[in-house]
């Protein structure tokens, strides 16, 4: 497996031959690994590469700021260098990185703090930013420049780094101490990449804007290659609650992971292993699992072989275990989500829904939905869909996403939109769907679409329906008001016409008739506006009038129809 061959933290230094072999394997592995897996890492084409580079850096910055409880302020700048080359600059006000760690974090693949924890975060695998560095290096040959400062008292450090692809280790081109004025702490990354810049729903512009929507506590200053600067100021002065790391829930583990856990644990008995390495497993539950799997609770975990572990899986399935705690999930929250949407999508009506936490395969998650309706949004096109997982915009693979299915399966006609079977709703509307989870299930490593778990789709639909109901009542009310106004308008516009004709017939003054009719309208306005029943009664006369037309039809033949 690529990952294990890459990992040079090999514990088996006492075995020289294997060590030797491992070294040989590494000589080709990093670059090759990248080449083989670039599509998995989001570098399948030049256009997407630019997005991925920005995305990895911004995700890291946001995660770092939140972990350090700092209100994020992130500067993104893309400069066109010609010849399909772009310089990408990302600067944050995060905690900075201590000098010693800079080379490892940026120039060593699979180095990071998030890989093994079960905690809601944007990044997960410690591969993103170093993959971006590697991509830059492979396409332009230039090193990545990192500047970091950790406090006002400390000096800033500048590094120019490359990845030594033969050893997967950092190669320091330049290293110097410097002064970073007007900056207390933070990181600035500068790298050149081969890429294509495009506006539109799948470009960097959309990514930054959408990121601003779901991160209302962050400020973004973005300059695109056309030298247009966009500032997305924060809408909230409160950082989201810090997510907690949780141990895995037994229902959520797969056989492979369980096998690995069994081998790695330091617990001496199966009983202890179950109670301490998992959440929601107390002594009683652990005993029940052992019983259900016909295993001795006193067994040493390392003695468990493949068949035993399979039995253990069976036992877990048979045992009733309470759902995992859900306080590890930090949703954006209805209020903030609406605020975020409000500042970036001009519309006339907003609403948002945060569902209570639910669980898929033992992994807790929360679904949030927001709607922005009306304004200048086009009414004759499908609604704009913005999808997010853990506050990260998902710009590709829309049709493969669970949210797409949930939206299509929701009956939007009920809420005043038009929709044909199996299609997205049509109307002046933006729909936001956000999944927050300690482990968002993606359909592929590229993290572009949420997998179709029935529990997730069901929650999404419930959230969409709840938001839809609010939308529907607004749309209906609006329609009603418009109808009433239209009714008044009819009379207001007809009065001068009728008055003019009557004046002509009778010789009475037009102004006098108009004034008298206006007065009547004014007096009856209330009645016309309010009295729905009256108007419906009138409408019900429509069919009978219509009928008389039908009857008249019979006589079409008879009269001069020139």
């Amino acid at each position, binding site marked *: 497996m690529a990952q294990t061959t890459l990992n040079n933290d090999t514990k088996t230094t006492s075995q020289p031959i294997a060590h030797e072999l491992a070294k040989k394997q590494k000589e080709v592995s990093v670059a090759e690994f990248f080449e083989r897996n670039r599509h998995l890492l989001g570098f399948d084409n030049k256009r997407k590469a630019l997005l991925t580079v920005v995305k990895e850096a911004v995700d890291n910055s946001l995660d770092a700021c939140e972990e350090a409880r700092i209100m994020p302020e992130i500067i993104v700048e893309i400069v066109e260098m010609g010849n399909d080359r772009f310089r990408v600059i990302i600067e944050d006000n995060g905690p900075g990185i201590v000098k010693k760690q800079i080379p490892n974090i940026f120039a060593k693949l699979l180095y990071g703090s998030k890989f093994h924890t079960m905690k809601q975060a944007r990044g997960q695998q410690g591969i993103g930013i170093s993959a971006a560095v590697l991509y830059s290096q492979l396409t332009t040959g230039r090193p990545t420049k990192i500047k970091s400062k950790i406090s006002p008292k400390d000096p800033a450090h500048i590094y120019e780094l490359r990845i030594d692809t033969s050893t997967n280790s950092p190669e320091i081109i330049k290293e110097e101490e410097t002064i970073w004025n007007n900056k207390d702490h933070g990181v600035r990354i500068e790298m050149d990449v081969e890429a294509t810049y495009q506006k539109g729903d799948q470009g960097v512009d959309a990514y930054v804007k959408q990121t601003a929507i779901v991160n209302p506590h962050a400020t973004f200053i973005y300059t695109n290659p056309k030298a247009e600067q966009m500032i997305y100021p924060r809408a909230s002065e409160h950082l989201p609650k810090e997510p907690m790391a949780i141990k895995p829930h037994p229902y959520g583990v797969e056989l492979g992971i369980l096998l690995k856990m069994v081998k790695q644990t330091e617990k001496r008995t199966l009983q202890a292993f179950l109670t301490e390495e998992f959440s929601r497993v107390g002594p009683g539950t652990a005993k029940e699992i052992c019983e259900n799997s016909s295993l001795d609770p006193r067994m040493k975990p390392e003695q468990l072989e493949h068949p035993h572990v399979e039995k253990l899986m069976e036992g877990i399935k048979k045992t009733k275990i309470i759902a995992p705690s859900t306080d590890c999930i930090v949703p954006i929250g209805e209020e903030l989500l609406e605020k975020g949407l409000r500042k970036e999508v001009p519309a006339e009506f907003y609403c948002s829904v945060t569902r209570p936490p639910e669980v898929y395969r033992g992994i807790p998650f929360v679904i949030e939905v927001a709607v922005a309706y009306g304004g200048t949004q086009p009414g004759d096109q499908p609604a704009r869909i913005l999808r997010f997982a853990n506050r990260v915009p998902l710009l590709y693979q829309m049709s493969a996403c669970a949210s797409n299915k949930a939206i299509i399966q929701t009956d939007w006609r009920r809420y005043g939109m038009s929709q044909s079977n199996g299609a997205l709703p049509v109307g002046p509307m933006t729909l936001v769907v956000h999944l927050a989870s300690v482990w968002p299930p993606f359909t592929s490593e590229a993290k572009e679409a949420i997998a179709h778990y029935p529990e997730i789709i069901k929650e999404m639909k419930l959230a969409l329906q709840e938001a839809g109901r609010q939308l529907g009542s607004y749309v209906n009310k609006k329609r009603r008001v418009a109808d009433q106004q239209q009714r008044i308008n009819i*009379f207001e516009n007809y009065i001068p*016409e009728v008055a003019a004709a009557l004046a002509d*017939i009778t010789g009475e003054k037009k102004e006098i008739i108009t004034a008298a009719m206006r007065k*009547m309208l004014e007096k009856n306005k209330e009645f016309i506006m309010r009295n729905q029943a009256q108007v419906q009664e009138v*409408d019900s006369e429509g069919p009978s009038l219509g009928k008389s037309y039908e009857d008249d039809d019979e*006589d079409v*033949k008879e009269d001069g129809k020139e």
Partner: protein
Amino acid sequence: MAKSKNPKEAIEDLGKGIVKDIMKGKQPELEVPVRSLSNVEFNKKSGTLELGNKMSQRQFFNVAHAKKFLQTIEIAKVTKDLLAVGKHASLRDVFYMVKRTIPNTKTDIVEEQTESDKAIEDLELLTEFSREQLNINANKMGSVAGKVVVEDAGDTIDWSRLGSGGWSIPSNVENIKFKKVDADYVIYMEKAAVWERLHEDKFWQKNNCIIMSSQGQTTRGIRRLLQRLSDEHKLPIYILTDADPYGYYIYSVLKFGSINLAHMSQTMTLTNARFLGITMDDIEKYGLQKHFIKFKDVDVVRLKQISEYEWFKNNKHWQRQFKMMKGYGAKAEIQALSARGISFISDKYLPEKIKNKDFLD
């Protein structure tokens, strides 16, 4: 409303009434009899369709009525102007005189001619004057020929000396004076082409009659002219149409009146009209079955409707025709007779039918 002396006065009275209501703060409204099947009755005594007593109100301050109200008032205004200058306009003219976009809206006062036509009918009912009297005419559509001399607008016209085209019947025949009428009967036919055939064959000369036709539609002018010939000169009226539900319907309208013009039954209907042909029996008699045209769905529906008309329901002769037609599921045109020779219709078919008094009542 009490009948006003002349049309112009009638319109002015109508307008004054409405203005009076407005000044009093009373809902401006127009009251017209309902013109639908539900408010039309067949008067067995007179043998015509008559309008019932149901009235419908057109209130201005009512979303469903406002536009119709406006349309009727607009038509009244246009009509008053026509009467004032003594000019005549066609239905189409009136449509264009009224049609314009209402300021601040996207709607026109009238979108289609049917709307202005309707409003004109409303005005007829409101003023109790026919549209011809209101100086609104339909297009001239019919031709007539025969040994008749009339005076129209100061000119003397001899219907027997007008070449191949005949006299074209004006839409308003009220003021025509008959100087000489030398005929035993009148044949009205649905098809202009058949009229041309008979005219070319000098059928009216040989048989001492009047032949009249229109372009499929029986205009008011023609109906009125037929009625005058029937009333004033006691001429029998014979109707010649295709053997199809539509043709039978033409006969029905001429003889009994129509829902639309039920308010004008007295001046329009020809209670003495008789149906000459083409009957289903004619088709069998002359072996024209191979010239049948198969029914479309609409024909089937139409036939059923007609056969259920009150005035046909108990008429066994007509019911027999309907039944035969239904049995064949097919119709035939008058021109099918030409299969027996180009002048078969004038030399044999018509003279025989009239001689034998072979018609339906």
